[in-house]
């Protein structure tokens, strides 16, 4: 019997700071047991985020160039190195309570499974490369970055970023994931046809529900509004 879980699909590109803050608030509420496990699916305007292991010289563009292209840079609290979020990329933030004996490695494998399963539905063959890095790969190119933090060693924060028809030229601005000799790709590039976020999202939702054994219901409006209202303000 699947557990009930919330699904949040805030419309439009959600500014990074607003989404990040709302995600952290939801995780605190999940930790307090006020809300069920939740999956947030959204897109961001262009942003480079630097995880705890990011080195300054892995941002290859100076801040002015980033800004000139309409992007921003944020240092955030997840593990890992630099990555990029932007239009055409499906970002998933699962807020999951892993319990008092969390298996973070197992959780990351499940996230990979979700993305692999969703891509398979779309006819794209991708795989994990656990010996290289967490994430989902096609050969030596990463199609989906995964970076996670646990709140109080228990509730998941951040998540996965699946390139659908992302403008991959942005990735020239960083040493993506701290791996200089690995490339980045997207579902559109892999298939040679335009695969938009809207086309991928249902597959990701199905694969997630199956792998995490949850039944989604839409989150209450006021929860979703926390993202959209904050977005308006930001």
């Amino acid at each position, binding site marked *: 019997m699947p557990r009930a879980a919330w699904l949040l699909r805030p419309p439009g590109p959600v500014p990074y700071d607003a989404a990040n803050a709302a995600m952290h608030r939801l995780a605190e509420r999940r930790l307090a047991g006020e809300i069920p496990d939740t999956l947030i699916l959204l897109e961001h305007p262009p942003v480079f985020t630097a995880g705890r292991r990011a080195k300054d010289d892995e941002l290859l563009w100076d801040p002015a160039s980033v800004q000139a292209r309409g992007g921003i840079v944020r240092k955030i609290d997840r*593990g890992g190195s630099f990555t990029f979020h932007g239009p055409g990329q499906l970002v998933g933030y699962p807020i999951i309570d892993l319990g008092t004996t969390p298996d973070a490695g197992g959780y*990351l494998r499940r996230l990979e499974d979700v993305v692999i399963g969703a891509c398979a539905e779309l006819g794209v063959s991708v795989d994990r490369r656990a010996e290289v890095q967490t994430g989902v790969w096609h050969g030596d190119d990463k199609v989906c970055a995964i970076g*996670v933090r*646990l709140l*109080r*060693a228990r509730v998941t924060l951040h998540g996965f970023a699946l390139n659908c028809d992302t403008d991959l030229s942005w990735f020239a601005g960083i040493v993506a994931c701290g791996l200089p000799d690995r490339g980045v790709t997207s579902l559109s590039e892999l298939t040679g046809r335009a695969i938009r976020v809207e086309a991928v999202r249902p597959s990701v939702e199905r694969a997630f529900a199956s792998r995490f054994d949850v039944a989604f219901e839409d989150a209450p409006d006021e929860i979703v509004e926390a993202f959209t209202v904050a977005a308006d303000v930001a």
Partner: protein
Amino acid sequence: MTSIQMPQLGETIVEGTILKWLKHEGDAVVRDEALFEISTDKVDTEVPSPVAGTVTKILVDEGATVPVGTIVMEVAEEGAPAVAAAPVAPAPAGAAAADAPPAPAAEPVGVVVASSIPAPAAPVSQPAHVAASVPDRGPRSQILSPLVRRLAREHSLDLGQIAGTGTGGRITKNDVLAVIASGGTTAAPAVVTATAPDLGTAEPAAPPAAAAQPIQLGVGDEAVPMTHIRRAIAEHMLASTQATARAWTLVEVNVDHLVRLRERVKDDFERKHGVKLTYLPMVVRATVDALQAFPDVNARLDGENIVRHRLVNMGIAVSYDAGLIVPVIKGADGMNTVGVARAIADLAARARAHQLTPDEVQGATFTITNPGPYGSVASVPIINQPNVGILSFDAIVKRAVVVDDAIAIRSMVNISMSWDHRVIDGELATRFLARVRQNLETWDFAEDLGL
């Protein structure tokens, strides 16, 4: 006093880095308040306090990377006596614990080749007073140069009594010279020369006066008549080496995730199933699967025919006071890991109590020996007739291995097989062992433990 450890965030995560202490010595904390932030190769998180109280001790520097389970902080619980009143600080246990190799499988099983050698005493059971009187014994205190050993021997010094000042507690020449210069001999040699207790090496004291017939004995020699079992083992081993064309193959297996899993669930497992969880049942399961995939290994030679066994009766070499015996897990192919663990515990206990029935030591279709608990890293066993192979599962040790062109620390074990070249060829032996390795490296045994 509550000790806070580097938390276990999953089987595959073996170490973590302290990013930042959020609480410092003397700070009050409430339950579930974040104490420090950590970073692992998979995730970052902050670690909450399991109790309310006061931080009394921080044992690791910010930025340090330590193995999971290392004690990094101590918190005095609310209402507990203030720690300042107790000037004797507990020795930091973290480093030593982290250095200890993973506990070997506890099953006492036989070293088939060396079965005539009495089981060695337990590894390094140090006299208790040593630990008590020398406060700081670093992880490298056991590493001694030949010069240090010679100086100590010449001056009858007990190195266990000397605190090393070298890297990691290593005892240097100067440390020893200082003791000699101070005129010191180290105390308590009596305890030290008394070696660890004989663990059932079990030659009954004073064998009955042997031998009316003359035996050539040199000075200090003694003659001990073979026991009935000793003679039987000798005949069996010699017959096997004479009857088989024995070859041997070894594979290295990364059992990191099994070590994590066992650490995580062993207490629950023992509580629930009443037997200790060792690695041997997992190896048996992995081997049974490989035997079913390669039935020529689960076979015997009968005249001109190779007889393949569809069922697996797994012989487990067990050492006991009288020598070596191989009780058989009948129908091992139908058992999960819990069933195998129970069967092994039962057979080993009754073997040592001399309560096995003849039926229980016959009919093995394949045999596993597990000399690992004594620290061997590779063994060449003699095939248990009429099997065509015997698998040796040696000690699990942490080793530096190359993973994706980087050096990493992994719990590794050597698994090898002596096989009869009359029936098996090298390719089959290697593919069989590769299957065992693949099973051990990729199976999620968690689902097989009935927890």
